[in-house]
């Protein structure tokens, strides 16, 4: 009887997620173009080609750099913002609201906002004599910066919520002992929000491998592939180069990476006996 209530969810999930995911694995062993009606089974050839494909290797490297950036910059900003907000009385809700606003701005519009600010002829780029989105050394970091602008405020809100669950008596005791705010942060706050911190670290890694919008909108992977991520390489191979089989293999590798990350997390959680 209960399954009748589950049926709509199961059906929609089956058609949108499960069947296409399984098909993706099947296609990844073929040379299917996407539009042709015939596909030849090629075994592991797509996968062996991947690691000799400079675009794929470069995309993977950029994804790793992207992950490192997002594990450091927004995490630090989010933790700092939340910790500072948790210690003030006045304007806390106002600041929280202001920090969260960029998160609700659509990625297309956000990209447009920053394209103008970073413009090499009229924006900040002209003041600093740089071309943030057009210079191969700067472009990846510029795109990550724009994505981070929309992202870090979300982390402030989530971390703040977790910090408000910490017993205030702990801070009062630490203050009696004369512990500096710096000390209090590392010995009370950070251990107190560890489940949230670990979970968002995990999701940051997973989402970093899915990043697509900002690169596609701002640079399309350019200049000269300097901002290409796995997702943009996959997209180009699937819809411009008509290599549906090959791009499916990229998708499967991306799924394997996130499965690996989740598995490591689950094992660590079990070994360390974390509670979430």
């Amino acid at each position: 009887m209960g399954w009748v209530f589950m049926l709509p969810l199961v059906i929609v999930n089956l058609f949108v997620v499960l069947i296409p995911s399984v098909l993706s694995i099947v296609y990844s062993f073929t040379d299917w173009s996407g539009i042709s009606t015939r596909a030849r089974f090629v075994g592991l050839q797509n996968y062996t080609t991947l690691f000799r494909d400079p675009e794929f290797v470069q995309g993977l490297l950029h994804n790793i750099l992207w992950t490192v950036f997002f594990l450091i910059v927004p995490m630090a900003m989010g933790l700092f913002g939340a910790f500072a907000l948790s210690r003030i009385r006045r304007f806390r809700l106002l600041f929280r609201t202001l920090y969260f606003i960029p998160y609700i701005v659509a990625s297309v519009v956000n990209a447009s906002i920053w394209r103008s600010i970073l413009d090499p002829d009229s924006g900040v780029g002209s003041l600093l004599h740089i071309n943030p989105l057009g210079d191969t050394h700067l472009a990846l970091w510029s795109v990550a910066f724009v994505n981070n602008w929309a992202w870090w405020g979300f982390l402030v809100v989530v971390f703040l919520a977790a910090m408000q669950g910490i017993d205030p008596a702990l801070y009062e005791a630490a203050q009696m002992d004369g512990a500096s705010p710096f000390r209090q942060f590392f010995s009370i706050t950070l251990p107190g929000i560890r489940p949230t911190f670990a979970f968002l670290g995990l999701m940051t890694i997973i989402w970093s491998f899915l990043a697509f919008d900002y690169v596609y909108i701002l640079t399309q992977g350019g200049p000269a592939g300097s901002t290409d991520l796995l997702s943009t390489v996959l997209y180009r191979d699937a819809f411009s180069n008509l290599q549906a089989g090959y791009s499916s293999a990229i998708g499967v590798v991306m799924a394997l990476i996130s499965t690996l990350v989740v598995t490591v997390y689950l094992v660590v959680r079990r070994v360390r006996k974390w509670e979430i």
Partner: protein
Amino acid sequence: MSVAAPARTPLQQSIGTARPDTARARRHPSAGGTVVYVILTLLAIFAVGPIVLFFFNALKSTSDYATSSLGLPRTWLWSNFATAWTQANMGAGLLNSTLIVLGTVALTCVVASLAAYAMARLEIRGSSGFMTYLLIASSLPTQMFLVPLFYMWARAGLYDSRLGLVLIYTGLFSPFATLLLRSFMIGLPREMEEAARVDGANEWRVFSQVVLPNMLPGILTIALTTALSAYNEFLFAVTMIQTSGKMPLSTTFFSFQQGFTQNYPLISAAGFIMIAPMLILFLILQRRFISGLASSGMGGM
């Protein structure tokens, strides 16, 4: 959901200020406090400044923008909004977005509330395994199934169709909505449901007449988060909708700014038209928004 609760009640605050003076003296509240507020204000300017500048740019003439893209408008050209509205075809985009968002929200709420009820209340075999599956399904890379989904939808006649996009969004957003509603439902008391069952009501009646009214706050939360996700979504919108008359705002705006008009004030005005409805909705209902997105720590970059 502690996010939505006020941080400290007046009672707690008065207890806080009643601490012995020795503890307060060591804190140096004034100097440290000012530095913290200065940094917090700088961060607030970093967050909101670009949006304010974007609004100013929407009001500039092209020559005004060419000379100062980072300053105030010299003359406030409110007509830019009307021009952008027609040139970028924002009316059609807004209509399509409204249809797509409402369709997605309605379907997601129905699908998620039915499933959440079953998972929270009815003893189903395999329910915990299914929950693990939902967790995995909602963190699976969309790129993994994008390509086969595209060709499946093309074959089913759902490519370049707003209904097709609604179905995809429902599939994408319903696992998260279900998990959120399920945890909301577990916090609700069971007594009224049991009483209705004792009175001979069947599961459907219990669900529709007893459970659903109590679930409304939770449903409103998932409706808001789903609406935001669907309204802002880009990857599937740009992949699945080709005809400009069917495009939602995200791709309508995208093609306008990619197009031949490199008139940045008009692009800004069109962009501002796109974000305005969500900004207003957020400012009115921010607590519910924030509790929905933040309590779970899910949302996506």
